[in-house]
């Protein structure tokens, strides 16, 4: 048998920590970002030979290089935030809605249809609300279907919402052929390019301001809804423990349906803002994977809508910075994705150090020989 004469302690031990004060946990997070930047600097030097400072400047310039870029950054943050807000109530209820992508597309499709078929027939004052309502309804239905089956037949919502994404993509692909403009381009092109029918109006000459304000108000509303309303309370209870919910007489089925509907509705709204307020066209990539990125935003913020403003900004900042260094330094897009990956890894990893203590083996075991 092994030699047991001396005491061997395991090299590393991990134990759970009590809750940390907020400033300490933020210090840990800041340190994580600093460390990530240092590591990225080495990676940059080793792989490209460029000065990391110059690269970081370019990353910053990617988001804030010009007034136009600043507006574009905030617009992108707003859209990602909007979709993140949509998935949050569902996730808080442990309803794994990974179908935001499809729900956004459903909303976008409804908006486009309204713009194409009703654009010239209705005045803007009637058209825009109808578009908004139609897209919200479309997103809502897209999420309500999986929720209905979950509530009544206990189907798995993860698979169901995921599959609904593919249905939405195919529906959009079909409509693109239907609405192709000009013929043979295999795209819809800008809808109502000269008349601007169904385009969300500019505020103070800023194309994106209205989008940003709408999303900001949704953020505040969602924060209040989750924290102070009876519905929000029911969502938390159902999410934490369905047994408790039943025990106190919450109608679990109703809460699931209602919350999923809300989640889909906000996705539909995001689809409306993307088509009517931003792109003025539709393609199968209108949602652009943001339905999945939104899940990261929501989790990182621990489902707090106010913190989600920060996390969605962080992700967009990294994404835009990555794009910028790819063009400025003529680097392959992969290098910037490596950098984003490193930074995200450190940020997520820092949560571990906030929740756990790691202790190493002590050199000489004083306690043992007391």
């Amino acid at each position, binding site marked *: *048998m*092994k030699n*047991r*004469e*001396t*005491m*061997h*302690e*395991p090299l590393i*031990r991990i*134990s*759970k*920590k*009590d809750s940390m004060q907020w400033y300490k946990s933020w210090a840990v997070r800041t340190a994580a970002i600093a460390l990530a930047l240092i590591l990225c600097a080495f990676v940059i030097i080793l792989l490209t030979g460029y000065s990391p400072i110059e690269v970081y400047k370019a990353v910053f310039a990617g988001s804030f290089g010009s007034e136009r870029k600043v507006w574009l950054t905030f617009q992108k943050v707003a859209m990602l935030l909007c979709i993140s807000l949509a998935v949050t109530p569902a996730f808080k209820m442990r309803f794994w809605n990974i179908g935001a992508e499809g729900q956004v597309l459903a909303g976008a499709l409804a908006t486009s249809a309204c713009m194409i078929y009703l654009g010239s027939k209705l005045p803007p004052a009637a058209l825009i609300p109808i578009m908004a309502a139609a897209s919200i309804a479309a997103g809502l239905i897209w999420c309500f279907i999986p929720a209905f089956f979950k509530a009544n037949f206990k189907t798995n919502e993860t698979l169901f919402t995921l599959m609904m994404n593919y249905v939405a993509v195919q529906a959009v692909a079909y409509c693109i052929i239907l609405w192709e403009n000009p013929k043979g381009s295999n795209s819809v092109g800008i809808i109502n390019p000269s008349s601007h029918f169904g385009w969300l109006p500019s505020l103070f000459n800023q194309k994106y301001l209205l989008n940003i304000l709408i999303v900001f108000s949704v953020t505040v509303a969602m924060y209040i809804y989750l924290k*102070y*309303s*009876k*519905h929000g*309370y029911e969502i*938390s*209870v159902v999410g*934490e*423990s369905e*047994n*408790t919910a*039943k*025990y*106190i*007489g919450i*109608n679990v089925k109703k809460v699931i349906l209602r919350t999923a509907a809300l989640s889909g509705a906000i996705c539909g709204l995001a689809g409306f803002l993307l088509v009517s307020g931003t792109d003025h066209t539709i393609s199968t990539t209108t949602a652009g994977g943001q339905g999945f990125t939104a899940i990261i935003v929501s989790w990182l913020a621990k489902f707090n809508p106010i913190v989600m403003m920060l996390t969605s900004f962080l992700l967009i900042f990294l994404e835009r910075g990555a794009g910028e260094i790819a063009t400025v330094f003529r680097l392959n897009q992969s290098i910037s994705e490596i950098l984003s990956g490193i930074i995200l890894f450190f940020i997520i990893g820092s949560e571990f150090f906030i929740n756990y203590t790691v202790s190493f083996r002590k050199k000489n*075991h004083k*306690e*043992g*020989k*007391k």
Partner: protein
Amino acid sequence: MSEKAPAIQLRGISKHFGKVAAISDVSFTVNRGEILSVLGENGSGKTTLMNMISGIYFPDSGQISVEGKEVSIRSPKDAFDLNIGMIHQHFKLIDVFSAAENIVLGIADEQYDLKAAKDKIRSTCDKYGFVIEADKKVYQMSVSEKQTVEIVKVLYRGASILILDEPTAVLTPQETRQLFKVLRNMRDDGKTVIIITHKLHEVLELSDRVAVLRKGEYIGTIETSQANESILTEMMVGKKVVLNIERSEPENPEDRLIVENINCLGRDGRRILSEVSFCARSGEILGIAGISGSGQRELLEAIAGLQKVESGKIVYINPQTGGIDNLRDKTPVQIRALGVRLSFVPEDRLGMGLVGSMDIIDNMMLRSYKKGKSVFLQKKEPRNLAQRIINELEVVTPDVKTPVSRLSGGNVQKVLVGREISSSPTVLMAAYPVRGLDINSSYIIYNLLNRQKKNGVAVIFVGEDLDVLIELCDRIMVISSGRISGILDGRTSSKEDIGLLMTKEQRGGAV
């Protein structure tokens, strides 16, 4: 065999979880060939300490010696190599495997020869007086059979030091006696047996010596022959405790809840309650005894509107109006809408009665948040209620904003019971309300139940400690495999009477 040779020596063992010291500076010795009880209240660190000997946890500091040699036990495998085996409270068996398959599972350096293994199992069983069917599948076994498999599994691997964590918690008095006989046989064969427990009479009946822990600290070891219940309690609790539960005569008992021939199916479609009938009266405590999993949970949930009832009636007699309502097939909300003030302290406190991640205020709101027309939550009343319960029931908590999962078991239970009786119920159902609680908290709960009884509430108390049931309850109903096997008078019945009824159906072959 030298009687006094040390089998295990602990020196200065400490273990922290976060800021909490689970074990601080514990040193004592376990002798070879003795039965040692490790006695302490829930949360005193008994299991944590034993887990360090069996390799589940590693001590923060301190030294363990086995057979006189300093060792370091980093995993259960290390413990096995030192011939230490632990039988945990929650069995670690594979349901679809037979007893023999479970026993040989995980032994790497041996040819897989089930036949030889069975022979070895049989000889082990004969030696100590176990009864085991080697081919029986675990899912067909009773709790006590599963426990036997766990013990044989440990012996099969050649353990000479056995640690049993609360082994009698799930057994009937008769099964307990059988277990004790086996344990004595093992001691006489030279094995060292450590048993973790908080039941005093078991300590006195079985062990040679008793080591007492209190709040993670080692208090002392005494010879059982020199101990009695009050000495041990004082060591455990740190002060003298009066161990009598008061029991007043019921005042004008009236029928409050009449259950007639109800039948229920479990989640797997098997019948879990058959033809259950009884009556709960106001101003009395009706105890429900039975082996855990005999249908107690389903019975209470059926009354509370959480479990579907196939047939039968649940009749509530309203004390104000004398009106009669059938509660069957009603949801909890509908039951409340009828004006039935039914409170329920479920067995699963943090999984059903409370939401662990929410603070005390939010947990108070569970019952009342719907009040009022506003779409927003009204926090004022629940905050006052939370504060009142903290003050009146002496809940130890940093503040009302602390998530209840951070509180100790006793305080969690006070919060839950406090909320349930705050709605001045007419029927109060409590499932295992003192499970995991220390002596003082348990007595606070007994007093609360007694006070409800005096207020004319019909109290239904599902318990596991027969001594407590006999002392506290006016009537005791025994449930066995989903049937009522008898209703006894709490003042005249004995533990043995109840124990026989607990296994009645099984003996006669469950239908």
